[in-house]
Each structure stands twice: as structure tokens, then as C-alpha cells.
């Protein structure tokens, strides 16, 4: 079987640390597959990281904290590829809010009525 694709992560410090401990982090000389978003991280940098992850062929899933996803919602809105797939996860400060998740909106629309 093929080596398999990586799981990229764009999140705040806690989130990324947790996942790095779980073993998804991969850093080589060329690139890494994660971005720690701090208070002073600029929006273009986040956008650039996201776009970079989406164009890489060795990344299968992109995990992104929901509050960061909201910041780059305009980029996410136009993204329609199946691989890599984008998954929004809650963070420590911002618990999960289904209303902001695009996929959950579709699900709810289809099942009829809100949760």
C-alpha cells in the first residue's frame, strides 16, 4: 500500500500541541504540515498556509480550529475539492458550534429542521 497521506493542522497552540503529541506532525526541510496560529499571526499567513496545504498532494486531511476557520471563511467557501478534505474542530476556548459549520448546515437542511 502507498505510504499514505498526512494530516495537516492549522490551530492554536493547544490544539496543535495535542495533535503533535498524537503523532501527526511532519516537518522536513521543505515544509511542515502544521501551523500554530497565535494572537499575532496575520491573516494572510493563515490563508497562505491553508492554500499551501490544499495544493500539496501528500496531504489528505486538513484540521482547522473553528474560530480560525471563521477568519478565513472566504477562502474556505470557495474550496470544493474532496481531497484534501477540510474538517473544522473546536478549540479549548471555542467549543463546537454546529451553526458555523458548513457541512452541518447541509446535513441539517437535508434532514429537515435544525438540531
Amino acid at each position: 500500500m502507498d505510504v499514505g497521506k498526512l494530516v495537516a493542522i492549522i490551530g492554536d497552540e493547544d490544539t496543535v500541541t495535542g495533535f503533535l503529541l498524537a503523532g501527526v506532525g511532519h516537518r522536513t526541510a521543505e515544509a511542515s504540515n502544521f501551523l500554530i496560529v497565535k494572537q499575532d499571526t496575520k491573516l494572510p499567513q493563515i490563508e497562505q498556509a491553508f492554500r499551501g496545504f490544499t495544493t500539496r498532494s501528500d496531504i489528505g486531511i486538513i484540521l482547522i480550529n473553528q474560530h480560525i476557520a471563521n477568519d478565513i471563511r472566504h477562502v474556505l467557501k470557495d474550496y470544493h475539492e474532496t481531497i484534501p478534505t477540510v474538517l473544522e474542530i473546536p478549540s479549548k476556548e471555542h467549543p463546537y458550534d454546529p451553526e458555523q459549520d458548513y457541512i452541518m448546515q447541509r446535513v441539517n437542511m437535508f434532514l429537515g429542521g435544525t438540531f
Partner: protein
Amino acid sequence: MSEVPPTRMNQQIFKGKLKAAVGGHKLLKKKADALKVKFRDYAKMIAETKSNMAADASGAFFSLTQAEYAAGNFKRKVAEGSLQARIRVGAGVDNVAGVKLPVFSKYDTGAVADNQSLGLVGGGKKIVAVREKFTILLENLIKLASLQTSFMTLDEALKVTNRRVNALENVTIPKIEAVLDYISRELDELEREDFTRLKLVQGKKQVEIAAENARKDAMKREALLEGTPLPIGKENDEDITAAYDANDDQDVVF
């Protein structure tokens, strides 16, 4: 529609087309229904898994906080070390109701875990707990990602199939039916034209025959009145032997 010549052959051809279109429409409808059912299933699974995942995530973050409390600020150390991804995802393809769906599976490369030395100073157990919690969270997330991509792909497929069903129903089949109507109407029209033409010709012939008969009758009456023998060979139904009397000629004696 007007370019189709209204012949019987074309009628057969278009009848065949209609049959094919109706058959195809039925099949596509079945496929759309099957996809819809699967779509609903996926939607339910996603809703469930997402809410589970939310709970897992908060649990994982909590254990992270606990570990920080116990082991101090190790976050920076985690990010700075060398990193080889131990967990990867394999991308597979699943076939559901004729649609190829992408599926992710967790794939452990078995490489050495990074940052083994993190918790040596203190709070090692807590750090191990963080690893475990996040690994479980990761598994659920990978599953969720699978569901999500399948969901989106199914959505697309469902839309396309519905579009084709509607196109057949509202455009192709009415068009073919219209052509068939036109052909059968034209064929009927041609038949009627032929029929009337035939009738006209027959009528004319009748008139001619009637006129001839009238003329013949008039001549017969004239001849009877005057007593003259009718000229031979004029009418077929005339008795030509009447012109010859048996006693006219001398008997031939040997």
C-alpha cells in the same frame, strides 16, 4: 420537428427511441432514490459523529490543561523537536450505489514516537494521557473526514442524477412524443389524400361510363326506329349473328 420526414420507417425509429428514453428514465429514477437513501444515512452518521467528536475534543483539551499544570510549559518543546508523522491516512475508494466515494483509514507507520523524553521531569502520566486522548480524537476525526467527503461526493452525484432524470422527463421524452404525433398525423393525412384522389378518379370513370352507356342507348333506339341493321362490330354485346340469315347463302352441294 419539421426536419423529420413523416415515413413509416421514421415512425419505427422514433418508437424505438421513446422506449429507450422511458426505460432509461426509470433506471435513473431508481438510482436517484438509492442515492437519496444512502445520503440520508450519511447525513445521520455525520450528525452523530460530530456531536461525539465535540465531546471528545473538550475531554482532550481538558487533559492537555491538566498536563500543563503537571509538567509545566512543554508546548514549545513539542513543536521544536524533529517531527516524523507517525499517523497517516490512507485514501481508499468505496463504491456505493454505483458512485465512487473516497474513504480515509488511519494508518500507523510504526515509526518511533517523537518527544518520548517530554514528561521525564514531571507529569509524565498526564502527558501520556494527553497523547491517548488526542489519538482517540484523531481516530474519530479521520472517520468524520471520511464521512464528510463521502457526503459531499454523494451530494454531487445525487444532483447530477436528478438533473438527468428531469432532463429526460421534461425535454427528451416530450420531444420524441411530439415527433411521433406529427408523424402519425402526417401519415393519416397522406392516407386521406390518397383515398380522396382515388375516389375522385373513380367518380370520373363512373361519369365517363355513364355517358358512354347513354350514347349507346340513344343509337340503339335510333336504329330500331329506322329499321336499319346496326353496323357490325360496333358493340360487343350486339348480336352480330343477327345480321346473317341462315337462308341467305346457297347450300353447298357436292
